[in-house]
């Protein structure tokens, strides 16, 4: 097994040493190598001869159980290889300077080629890795922010619960106040709206709306003594009655209610008559 390798070495070395300027060391190196080769070849020939003598009796694989023969042969060869490897002394390469130089140059060139092949692949890999690294860093930042937010929320929650009753009462009071304010605003705007658009009919030349025909001009009334109830008040009464006593939200028809307004409320569906008693009416149940 050694011959082909040696021959290869010789050929490669001679090609790399071909153009060296100093002739004598080169020539001596070549002579030395050739001598080595010749000796090794002689050894190989001797080994071949002894091999021929020893294996003259070997035969082909047994036709009935070839696996056995093959396995046995494998075992023998492996044992032989192991023995050779164990008993082999490390071989000293020739100490001639030129030879060592040439071998070194060859090895360096080989590793240079391999590294050059490796370089683009490594560059690509590095690019991919840096891209994925950036991505991961971004993700990490986002998640850290989320973590911080969650932590602050978490810190808030137990504090809010610790100040139990007082703060809750306070918040409720605050909410009630706001609601009341809103309610007041609504009522006020309703009153303004009704005053501008649905004022109570005035005695004499009333300012009431004449759409449904002229309101009864009550000449019997004094100018400053309006007896008709404002629509605002009527609606307020209706609402209060329906809120205060939902089981009996009816209010009786009063003479102070101007009938056209009552009719208008009934017709718009804001109020409804009592089914049995036409003298009573209620706010229509819009919330049901």
């Amino acid at each position: 097994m050694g011959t082909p390798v040696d021959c290869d070495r010789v050929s490669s070395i001679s090609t790399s040493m071909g153009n060296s300027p100093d002739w004598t060391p080169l020539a001596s190196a070549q002579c030395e190598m050739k001598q080595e080769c010749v000796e090794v070849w002689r050894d190989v020939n001797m080994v071949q001869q002894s091999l021929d003598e020893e294996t003259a009796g070997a035969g082909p694989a047994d036709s009935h159980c070839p696996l056995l023969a093959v396995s046995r042969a494998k075992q023998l060869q492996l044992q032989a290889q192991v023995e050779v490897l164990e008993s082999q002394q490390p071989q000293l390469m020739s100490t001639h300077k030129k030879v060592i130089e040439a071998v070194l140059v060859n090895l360096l060139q080989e590793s240079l080629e391999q590294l050059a092949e490796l370089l683009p692949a490594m560059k690509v890999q590095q690019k991919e890795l840096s891209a994925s690294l950036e991505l991961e860093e971004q993700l990490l930042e986002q998640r850290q922010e989320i973590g911080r937010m969650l932590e602050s929320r978490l810190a808030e929650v137990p504090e809010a619960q610790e100040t139990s009753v007082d703060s809750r009462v306070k918040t409720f009071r605050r909410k009630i106040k706001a609601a009341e304010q809103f309610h007041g605003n609504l009522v006020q705007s309703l009153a303004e709206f009704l005053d501008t658009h649905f004022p109570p009919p005035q005695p004499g030349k009333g300012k009431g709306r004449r759409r449904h025909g002229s309101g009864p001009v009550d000449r019997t009334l004094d100018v400053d003594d309006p007896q008709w109830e404002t629509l605002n008040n009527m609606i307020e009464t209706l609402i209060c009655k329906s809120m205060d006593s939902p089981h009996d939200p009816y209010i009786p028809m009063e003479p102070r209610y101007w009938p056209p307004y009552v009719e208008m409320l009934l017709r718009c569906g804001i109020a409804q008559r009592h089914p049995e008693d036409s003298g009573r009416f209620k706010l229509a149940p819009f919330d049901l």
Partner: protein
Amino acid sequence: MAAEQESDMPEVLPGEILKPFNKMPCRDTATVLLVGSYGTGKQQLAKAMVDLCTDTGLKLQVRTTTSLPLPEENTDTRPRIDYIVFIIDLTNRLSFSTVKSAVQCVDVEYFLGRACFVVTNAKGTSDQCVEMEEVSRLADMYNTMYICGATKEGHPDERTTLANQLLRLVEVSAGRKNVSPLLLDLTCRQLSFQEEQPEFYTV
């Protein structure tokens, strides 16, 4: 030696058995022997392998034969055979029987990584008359690997791949790489202990 016994197989004389280490190796040369009956695509495979070698500096010699043992006349001029490829065509019953009789004319040394079986037409077409199981059984009996590939004109890429694989094996066998063929043989085996097949089916 099976010299004068009555047996079904024809007798094989000791001088006809191929031996890997009969002759001295030559520098930068390798010789492959393709064994397969007619129609298995040996010539095309040989050409593919030689084409691959033209610029690698390896002088590859490919010899083909339809049966072993090889004729006596050429024994002295023939170089030493580094690698043997047995080609089996799954659509050709004769190729299988040829290979079966050929493996008996080959020295045991060749089955230690210097031979392999090549199976062509293994793609499950309906005109297979040789079962893949038989081939794998044969390969297991001789503890040698087998490669499935194509050697005919219709599959140039597969043929090139097959030629590449064989070339790699041949180079190791010829001693070009500093590796023992047994090592390559090791890479084709599963080293885990496999359970007996019948156990799969007992439920």
